[in-house]
C-alpha cells in the first residue's frame, strides 16, 4: 500500500457499459495513462444480471444477452491493455479531481487525475421513497435486487408476485419470475401509460397473460414477518387513490420498478451541477460538466432505455476527454439548450459550437412529458425554426433523439436552442 498520490491522465469511475466504452474510446484516441475503478468484483456492471436477450440490436445489429454484450467491451478493453481495478470503491471525489478509493487488495489509494469520467450508473427508487403505507415485512424487493437474486445467486425471492411500476426491469422480471414457476398476479402502474419499452410490454406481460393495471397503485402493504398481500387501488387524474376501488391481492412478494435515479453522490462532492430534471450532471456536447476536466456519461448522466445508446454516448465522452487532455481546443461559442413545451430533460444542456468550420452533428436526447401521436419535434433558435419533424409516436418510456446538423449548429451561434413538441409543423 502506497501512501503517495498516484498520478494518472484519465480516471474513469465505473466499469459498466458506460465506463468500458469511455475507456476504449479514450485509449483509441491515444490516452495511454488511464485507469478504470469498479466497485463490483466483475466488469460489465448491471449487464451481468440481465441474462435476457435484446441487447446490441443497434450497435452490433445482433441480438445479444447482457453478459454477451458486456463481454465484447470487456474483451476489447483487455486487448487494449486498459487497467481496470474491480472490487474498488471510490470514496470521494474533489473538484480538483483527487479521487480516494479503497479495495481489499490494495487498501486506500489516492489518485490525482487530469480528467475524470463519471460512469457510476443509476440505482432504483426504493419503497421508502414512495412512502407506501402499511407494514414493513420481508418480501419487498426492487426489481433489480430480485433480478440479482434470481440470475446471479440462483435464489427465488417469492412465489406469488405483484409488481408495482412498469419500468423495464419490472417487466423483464415479470417474465423471469413466471418462467421460474412463480405466479405474477399483476403489474400495477400509477400513470395512464407504461414507462417501459413497448417490446417489453408485449414480450413480458402480454405473452404470459399478466394484466397491466394502468392508473393503479399499491395503497397498503400487509404482513408481519413475510408479506401476505397488498391492496391495489385505482387512481384519478390527480394520481391520488380513488376511495372504494381497493382490491386485495394475496402475494408473498412485491417487486418495485418505480424509477431509476442517477447515482451522483460523488459528483455532488465535487460540486458538479445536477439537473433537477434528469438528476444527472448538466453537460456540454463534449459531456463535460461545469467542473473543468470532469465528464459524465451513461446512466449517471441520464437514465437510458437501451445500452446501445449508453455505449454510443460514452464513446463520445471518452473521445472528448481525450481531446481535453491533449489540449489546444479551438475557440467556440457556448449556446444553451432549453426544454420547451412537451420536452423533459434534453441532453446535452450546453452546446460548444466551434467558431470555425463545424464538421460533426450533435444528437440531442430527450423524453416527452406524456404520450404524443403524430406530433412534430421542433428545434428553434431565438430567431428561427431550425427543423420541425413529424414523429408517429413519442412516449416517456422511450428516449427520443433529434439531430443538429453542422448547418443548424452554425445558425445557432450567439443564440440559444429550444426543443419542443408541437401539434402542427412549425416554420
Amino acid at each position: 500500500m502506497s501512501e503517495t498520490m498516484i498520478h494518472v491522465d484519465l480516471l474513469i469511475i465505473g466499469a459498466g457499459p458506460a465506463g468500458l466504452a469511455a475507456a476504449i474510446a479514450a485509449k483509441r484516441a491515444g490516452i495511454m495513462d488511464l485507469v478504470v475503478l469498479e466497485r463490483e468484483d466483475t466488469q460489465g456492471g448491471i449487464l451481468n444480471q440481465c441474462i435476457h436477450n435484446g441487447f446490441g440490436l443497434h450497435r452490433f445489429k445482433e441480438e445479444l444477452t447482457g453478459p454477451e454484450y458486456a463481454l465484447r467491451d470487456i474483451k476489447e478493453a483487455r486487448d487494449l491493455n486498459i487497467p481496470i481495478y474491480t472490487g474498488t470503491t471510490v470514496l470521494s471525489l474533489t473538484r480538483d479531481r483527487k479521487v480516494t478509493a479503497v479495495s481489499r487488495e490494495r487498501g486506500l489509494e489516492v489518485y490525482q487525475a487530469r480528467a475524470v469520467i463519471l460512469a457510476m450508473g443509476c440505482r432504483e427508487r426504493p419503497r421508502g421513497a414512495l412512502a407506501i403505507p402499511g407494514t414493513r415485512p420481508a418480501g419487498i424487493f426492487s426489481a433489480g435486487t430480485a433480478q440479482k437474486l434470481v440470475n446471479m445467486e440462483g435464489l427465488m425471492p417469492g412465489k406469488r408476485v405483484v409488481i408495482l411500476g412498469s419500468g423495464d426491469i419490472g417487466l423483464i422480471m415479470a417474465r423471469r419470475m413466471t418462467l421460474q414457476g412463480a405466479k405474477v398476479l399483476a403489474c400495477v402502474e400509477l400513470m395512464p401509460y407504461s414507462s417501459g419499452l413497448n417490446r417489453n410490454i408485449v414480450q413480458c406481460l402480454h405473452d404470459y397473460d399478466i394484466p397491466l393495471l394502468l392508473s393503479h397503485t399499491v395503497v397498503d402493504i400487509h404482513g408481519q414477518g413475510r408479506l401476505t398481500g397488498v391492496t391495489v387501488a385505482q387512481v384519478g387524474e390527480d394520481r391520488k387513490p380513488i376511495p372504494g376501488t381497493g382490491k386485495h391481492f394475496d402475494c408473498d412478494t412485491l417487486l418495485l420498478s418505480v424509477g431509476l435515479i442517477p447515482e451522483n453522490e460523488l459528483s455532488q462532492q465535487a460540486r458538479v451541477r445536477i439537473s433537477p430534471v434528469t438528476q444527472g450532471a448538466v453537460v456540454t456536447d463534449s459531456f463535460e460538466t461545469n467542473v473543468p476536466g470532469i465528464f459524465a456519461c451513461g446512466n449517471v448522466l441520464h437514465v437510458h432505455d437501451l445500452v446501445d445508446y449508453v455505449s454510443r454516448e460514452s464513446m463520445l465522452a471518452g473521445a472528448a476527454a481525450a481531446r481535453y487532455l491533449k489540449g489546444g481546443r479551438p475557440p467556440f461559442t457556448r449556446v444553451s439548450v432549453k426544454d420547451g413545451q412537451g420536452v423533459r430533460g434534453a441532453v446535452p444542456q450546453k452546446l460548444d459550437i466551434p467558431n470555425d468550420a463545424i464538421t460533426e452533428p450533435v444528437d440531442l436526447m430527450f423524453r416527452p412529458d406524456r404520450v404524443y401521436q403524430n406530433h412534430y419535434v421542433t428545434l428553434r433558435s431565438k430567431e428561427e425554426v431550425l427543423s420541425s419533424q413529424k414523429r408517429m409516436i413519442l412516449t416517456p418510456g422511450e428516449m427520443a433523439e433529434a439531430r443538429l446538423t453542422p448547418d443548424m449548429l452554425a445558425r445557432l451561434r450567439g443564440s440559444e436552442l429550444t426543443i419542443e413538441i408541437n401539434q402542427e409543423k412549425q416554420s
Partner: protein
Amino acid sequence: MFDILIIGAGVTGCSIAKRLGQYKGKMAVLDLADDVSQGASKANSGIVHAGYDAKPGTQKARLNVKGAGMMKDLCESLGVPYGQPGALVLGFHEEDRQTLEALYQSSLINEVPGCRLIDRDEVLRLEPNVNKDVLCALDVPTSGLVSPYELTHALADSAKENGVDFLLNHEVKALEYQDGAWLVHTSKGVLKTRAVINCAGTFAGVLHNQISTRKVKIIPRRGQYYLLDRMQPLLFTRTLFQVPTKMGKGVLVSPTTHGNLLLGPTAEDIEDGFDTATTAEGLDDILDKVRLTYPEVSLRQVITTFSGIRAHETGGDFIIGAVEGAPEGAFEAIGIESPGLSAAPAIGEELGDWVAYSLGLEKNPNHIPPTPLPKPFSAMSEKERRAAYENDPDYGRIVCRCEQVTEAEIRQAIRRPQGARTLDGVKRRTRAGMGRCQSGFCSTRVMQILSEELGLPLDMITKSGQGSELIVGQIGEKNDE
C-alpha cells in the same frame, strides 16, 4: 434457578441489565422478539430531552434530568453516537407565549440549565430555514440526540460480556409466585427465578396486573415518522418542537445523530401493541403539521417511513420499583414512554442497584467495563482508514455504498457479544441498508455474509427473525403454484 430475570430487551431492560452486570449472579433478559431493541427503542425520535416539560415532582421529571445528564458519558464509554445540538420549542400563535412561559417556569423548577425565551428574530438567526411566521420560542440548549437502537445494542453487549444472558424469542405469558420463587411462563417453557423485573413496554401492563393489587392501564400509542435523506448543509441543526398538546410533545423536525432529518411522530392510541403499520392518514397528518415548522418540506427527500409504539400509562408517570401488592422479588419499570429514552441510564442504575441490594448480590470483582464500539469507517480519517485496513483487509471492501459500510464492520456486528442474526440486525448495528437505496444494492451481500458467519443456508437468512425469510428457495425447484 436464576437470580434475576429481566422481561423486555428494550433500552430500559438493557440499561438495567448493564448495571446488573456489575454484580455476581445468574441473570438473563427475556424478549419475545428475535433481537434486542425491537419495540419502542428502535422507533422513536432519538431525543435526549432536557427535562423542561415533565411535571415537576414526578419520576419522569427527576429521572429525565438525571438520565439526560448521564447520557453523554455513557455514550462515549459505549462508542454510541450522541450529540447535543439543543432544541427550540416554537410558538406560532399569541396564545403560545403563555404555554412557552409555563414551560420556561417548569425548566427552572426541574433545574434544566440555560433555557430562555427568545423572539422571532433570534429564532430565525439560529435556524434560518424555520417558517418565517414563527413568533417566539423556548431555547433549550441542553437538548440532545442519541441513536436509540445503537445505544440499546451497546448496553446489551456490555451486559452480555459480564454474564447476563439474552433469551430471545421467549414470549412471557404469565408470572407466578410459588414457594418463595417466581415462575416465569414463557413460550419456550417455565423459568424459575428469585426476582423478576418487568420492563415489557407496551405489554408490561398485562404482566403487572397479574401480580399487583394496584391495576394499571397501558395503551399502545403509535407514532409514525418520515426519515429524510441526508442533505448538505443540514437544513436544521436543532430539534424543533411545536408547542405541546395533551397527546404529547407534538410533531417535531429533528436532525438525527447521522445527519438525516426526522419528521414525526403522530400520536394514535391503538388496540394492537404489535401494529407498527404506517397509514396514509398518519403520514399525511405529519406533513400537514410539519409544514408549520418547515413549509418547504418535500416528499422527494423521503427515504423511508416507519412507526413505533410507545407504552402510554394512563396515570401519566413512570412506575418504577417493587411491584405494589406483589410478593417479594417482583420489580418493574413500566409506563416508560417519553422521556423514557432520556431517563434510561438513570432507571438502569437506580433500579439495577435496588434489585441487587434487595437480593444481597455481591459486586462482581471481574466486571469488564465496556469497550467503546470502533469508529465507523465512514467517520474515519484517511490515516485511521489506512490503519483499520492494515489490521483487517475486510475494511477495504465497501458493502453498503450509501452509508460506506465495510465488510469488516458487518462481520464485527455479527460477532459482537449480542450480535446481529438478521438483515435488520446488521442494519441497526452498522447502518448497512439505512441509506438512500434502502438496501437495494447491499442486501444480497449482507445475506451472504450472515450465511457464512452463522453457518446457515441462505434460505434461512431472515429480515427480522423467523417468519421473515427473504427467499423461498433455489431456482429450478418445483413450485407449488
